[in-house]
């Protein structure tokens, strides 16, 4: 990943004068960029702005037609566009309401390339853990909890007859979906959020391809990340692969700064997680939580991680195995923290069965 980031810095100054000479006269001919956050926290937008001065290069290279987080834009302007008029759309959130699904389909129709940007769009991320609960449970929790002052027990209604006409609110879908479960996608940029230097590397690759100075990444590629695992980038030493106890980080006063965290009993998700982040968490003494998603070739992130963890448990008797596994208090949270919506099973049974609305 660092080799990918280095040429970036060199290429950037070269790109600037070219963009300037084009000037405002060619602004209309600039490729159009849309950035749309569906069900997301806004962290991806911050990560994009965090590419620092390269944001100027982005503004030079693209005509930004939609980016609700930072500028005014109208959905009707998008609707008025010709199909395929937008060159690239980055979608940084997951699909939770009928409105986001509609907009994802609209942007797909108007765009040449659609990128699942960040963990929410590509695998569901933290909002995807809502797939462990039914709509009713989610809304009850949000509207009637000890922290919510709601004496009249108000619930959201999706249609309201106002004097001016019927008002519609976006409707909550039964389950949260990833972008690729709703529309066809061209590329994925993983991460929660994607590392800023990786974002620029990925955008630059596409910009170069549009200028004709580089190859277009093949459809379906994962951009701005490696093709190995976090363990591969992690500087910690791995010696023995035997774990006799899983511990939680708050239970232990200190960990060896040199040795693999998994070996020390911390459930570290490095073995199943795609590299590209620079193994920042293990370097800081915290286990990898898997925000960069499944490593190359992995179909189901949690399955890969379960396989990895179970392989190194140092026990052969069922009761011994259970004692060790008891250390993983929340299996779904551990194995599917970022990837539940994009996993093979997608949701818990209660999400689709007890949907008592």
């Amino acid at each position, binding site marked *: 990943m660092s080799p990918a980031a280095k040429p970036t810095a060199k290429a950037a100054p070269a790109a600037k004068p070219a963009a300037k000479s084009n000037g405002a006269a060619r602004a209309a001919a600039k490729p159009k960029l849309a950035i749309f956050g569906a069900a997301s926290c806004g962290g991806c937008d911050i990560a994009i702005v965090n590419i620092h001065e390269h944001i100027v290069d982005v503004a030079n290279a693209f005509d930004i037609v939609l980016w609700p987080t930072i500028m005014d834009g109208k959905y009707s302007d998008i*609707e008025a566009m010709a199909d395929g008029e937008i060159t690239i759309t980055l979608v940084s959130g997951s699909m939770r309401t*009928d409105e986001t*699904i*509609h907009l994802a*389909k*609209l942007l*797909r*129709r108007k765009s040449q390339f659609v990128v699942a940007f960040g963990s929410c769009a590509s695998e569901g991320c933290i909002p995807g853990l809502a797939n*462990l609960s039914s709509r009713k449970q989610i809304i009850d929790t949000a509207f009637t909890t000890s922290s919510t002052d709601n004496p009249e027990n108000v619930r959201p209604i999706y249609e309201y007859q106002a004097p001016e006409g019927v008002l*519609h609110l976006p*409707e909550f*879908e*039964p*389950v949260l*979906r990833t972008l*690729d*479960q*709703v*529309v*066809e996608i061209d590329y994925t940029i993983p991460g929660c959020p994607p590392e800023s230097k990786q974002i620029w590397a990925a955008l630059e690759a596409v910009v170069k391809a549009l200028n004709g100075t580089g190859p277009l990444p093949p459809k379906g590629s994962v951009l701005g990340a490696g093709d190995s695992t976090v363990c591969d980038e992690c500087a910690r030493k791995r010696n023995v692969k035997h774990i006799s106890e899983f511990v939680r980080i708050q239970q232990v006063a200190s960990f060896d700064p040199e040795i693999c965290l998994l070996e020390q009993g911390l459930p570290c998700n490095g073995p199943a997680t795609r590299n590209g982040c620079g193994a920042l968490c293990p370097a800081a003494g915290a286990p990898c939580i898997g925000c960069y998603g499944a490593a190359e070739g992995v*179909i*189901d992130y*949690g*399955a*890969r991680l*379960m*396989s990895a*963890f*179970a*392989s190194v*448990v140092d*026990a*052969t008797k*069922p009761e011994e*195995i*259970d004692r060790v*596994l008891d250390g*993983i208090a*929340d*299996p*779904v949270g551990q*194995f599917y923290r970022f990837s539940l919506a994009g*996993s*093979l*099973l*997608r*949701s*818990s*049974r*209660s999400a*689709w*069965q007890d949907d008592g609305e």
Partner: protein
Amino acid sequence: MSTQTPVAPAPVEGTAQATGVAQAATFEPVIIGFTCNWCSYRAADLAGTARTKYEPNVRLIRLMCSGRLDPTFVLKAFAEGADAVLVSGCHPGECHYIEQNYKALRRFRLLQRTIEALGIEPARLQLVWASAAEGVRLANEINRVTDEVRELGPLNWPAGNLVDLDSADLDTAWEATGGDAGGPPEIPGGANPQHAAAKLPAAEAAR
């Protein structure tokens, strides 16, 4: 494997199963069975050679070792319509590859915890040890698992169907709000052709 000929009488332990078969004519579970090349697959073979009957609900897949069982296989089976998964391998201490069946055991224990948290009954994932000599034992275990799963009923995991759960209605609903002048957009390529096809009649009915 499973003999279809009516001549073979059921083994002693197997006779009790016959009643269960007759009662549950409505639901026949689909069980995916992963067998080890060196023991349980041969046990199934032996059951066939010996004309020991077992329920035809199980679809056996041969692996080189139960340690080859990637949890992905199990989850994929559930996601794509299996009602249960049976994993079988050599008895502890008898693995052809020394200790890989212990890995299978640990993965099995961990998988059971995870699927339970996702709302799948742990009994839908079972582990059975059977040596190459234990054809009758394997047949009995398959019958027992089949009966247990019949009791549990169909799993009907909708993972794949969640794709287009209600998107046919969705565009119609959106159009009613006057949201998009262009009408319901096509899903280019579709998320999953299988489900796109399944969706077609509903979309036509809406028109």
